[in-house]
């Protein structure tokens, strides 16, 4: 009788090591689990999940046109995930990418409105991009400054900054910058990014950013500083790092990259500015960054995966009348499963041995 209460049925212990293959198998398993759970939502609508996933794949990769649209969705996701990566590595919870995109796009649009026709297209685009870098960067720098100075909660600060800048654009859109019926006028072709391979050349820009972030995080002094701060602020101070300065610099960089994304979206994809320009990308890209374990190259794959989900969900809505927000549900589930699965990579579960322990005398 007493044997049964000696040890609990299930205990856990830290794994001393795990093979990379096993770790990836667990991660892959969790993705499959998320898709299975997502199929429950599909089943509720009375549709066949397998058919629904099939429709999603077809709708996102089934033709050249669809593929281009999917890539168009993936571009800002990838760009933003790259922007967020240094912040998250530093354990600075920047969830203001949404606002930083908008701020960047706003700055780029300002340049486009004032300089179109006055300078050549290449110069105009360059100036728009620079303005976006400054705009997004400053919008990221503000919460970074307060975090560095007074340790102000950055999660809520960056979030509120989203609503503020989006409100400003909403005002411009129906106020001073209004074109027709509450929308701004389309950009002049000179202010639009050219197309390469059927998609605006933003994809080249973000791929360059992948390389940049990879090198920045792995091989530069800045990247090293960020890693140390993320691990221990005290050690960083001990090493003579100016934590506040690094925090502000990293937030400026993060905002600046978001700004570039904003520029790419307004100049390349939408050819105009609207208050919904970020359209949730800032949040979804957090998922991309985390699911890729902040690895820049893995982000390419994950952002494509989420773009397929998003594009596929649109197709679901038009073809099977399943609300497109199914993509958010699946993305949320993916994140839940991936967050949870790290536990099984770090710990192992020990069932009580069947022998029942040693005999009492």
């Amino acid at each position, binding site marked *: 009788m007493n044997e049964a209460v000696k040890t609990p049925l299930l205990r856990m212990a830290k794994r001393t090591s795990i093979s990379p293959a096993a770790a990836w198998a667990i991660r892959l398993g969790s993705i499959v689990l998320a898709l299975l759970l997502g199929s429950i939502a599909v089943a509720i609508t009375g549709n066949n999940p397998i058919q629904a996933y099939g429709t999603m794949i077809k709708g996102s990769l089934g033709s050249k046109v669809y593929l281009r649209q999917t890539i168009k969705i993936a571009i800002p996701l990838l760009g933003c995930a790259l922007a967020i990566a240094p912040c998250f590595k530093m354990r600075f919870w920047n969830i203001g990418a949404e606002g930083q995109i908008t701020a960047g796009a706003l700055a780029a649009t300002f340049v486009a409105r004032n300089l179109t026709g006055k300078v050549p297209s290449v110069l105009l685009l360059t100036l728009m991009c620079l303005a976006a870098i400054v705009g997004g960067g400053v919008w990221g720098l503000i919460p970074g400054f307060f975090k560095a100075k007074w340790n102000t909660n950055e999660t809520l600060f960056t979030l509120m900054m989203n609503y503020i800048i989006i*409100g400003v654009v909403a005002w411009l859109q129906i106020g001073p910058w209004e074109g027709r019926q509450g929308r701004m006028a389309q950009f002049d072709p000179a202010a639009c990014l050219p197309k390469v391979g059927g998609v605006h050349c933003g994809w080249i820009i973000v791929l360059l950013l992948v390389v940049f972030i990879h090198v920045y995080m792995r091989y530069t002094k800045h990247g090293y500083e960020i890693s140390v701060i993320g691990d221990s602020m005290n050690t960083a101070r001990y090493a003579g790092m100016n934590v506040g300065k690094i925090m502000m610099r990293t937030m400026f960089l993060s905002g600046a990259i978001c700004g570039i994304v904003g520029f790419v979206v307004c100049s390349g994809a939408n050819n105009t500015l609207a208050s919904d320009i970020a359209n949730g990308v800032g949040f979804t890209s957090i998922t991309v960054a985390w699911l890729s374990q902040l690895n820049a190259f893995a982000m390419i794959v994950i952002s494509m995966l989420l773009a397929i989900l998003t594009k596929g969900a649109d197709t679901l809505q038009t073809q099977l009348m399943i609300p497109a927000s199914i993509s958010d549900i699946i993305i*949320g589930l993916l994140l839940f499963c991936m967050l949870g699965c790290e536990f099984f990579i770090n710990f192992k579960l020990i069932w009580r041995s069947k022998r029942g322990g040693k005999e009492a005398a």
Partner: protein
Amino acid sequence: MAILNAFILLVIAAITYGTPLLFGTLGEILTEKSGNLNLGVEGIMFMGGAFGLGGVFYYEKLSQNPNGFAAILIALLCAFLAGALASLIFSFITTTLRANQNVTGLALSIFGTGVGQFAGEFMRVRAGGYVTISNALKAFFTASPFPGALQNIPVVGQLLFGNSFFFYLAIVLAVGMHLFLNRTRPGLYLRAVGESPATADAAGINVARYKYLATITGGGISAVGGMVYITTIAMCVWNHEGLSGEGWLAVALVIFCLWRPLASIWGSILFGALMILYLRLQIPFVPTELYKILPYVVTVIVLIISSLRNNKEKQPPEALGLAYFREDR
């Protein structure tokens, strides 16, 4: 007199807009007192709004003669359960599987807004384009629980007794939570868990159970806020644009109110006022769209000011946001 009347009307409107925030904030206070920083309130309130509305909608559809009290009860129950379920996911992933609370909360935000949106859209499509309930039933949600005589007291009648049932429920909840946290044994233990889980654990308190219970109950309460928004402010129509941002404001309000349930009452009303000020108090040359960002600007200012405070009694629960694992070494 006109100014006084305008002011009273403003306060009443502020109460209407503040009530959903009050639920959201109270729920998150309870959650954070256990040391869990659940950033998923936005998603939780979406789910509460969608399922609360759904509950009433299907109740009216199925029932022969729908009863107002039953409708309110069903809405409360559906919203609470939706929020509790969402928080159960959060608790499982952060407390049992020890994942990062920040990211899990964000995931819950994405998931919850997705589920709320999905449910709202799904009902709309099913119902042939429009989900709402009959005007008779709607009136129950906004009606005051007090007799007309009290409401008709000059000047203060409407202000004190003319608000919806939910406002008074929230007040009772706030007072109850205050007493629970400060006067009862489980309340003391819960605060200990949030301040120092290792201490609570060593004292024989089941840390995981307190964290789970507080987070699930808190999530349920927050979700009721979403339902109250949809049924009182959005006139029982699914309106995700109106609801968006409420949850995040609630999280900010928790800091603003220093984790105190009683302070959250006037805090929520103040924020409610900020949200509708642009309708009531037009200022020349200030465009509406800019006026609407006022609550967010104020929140930012509040965040900055609260980070400047340095007082032992005015700090967040010490272990807020940290995972606890007994055998860690």
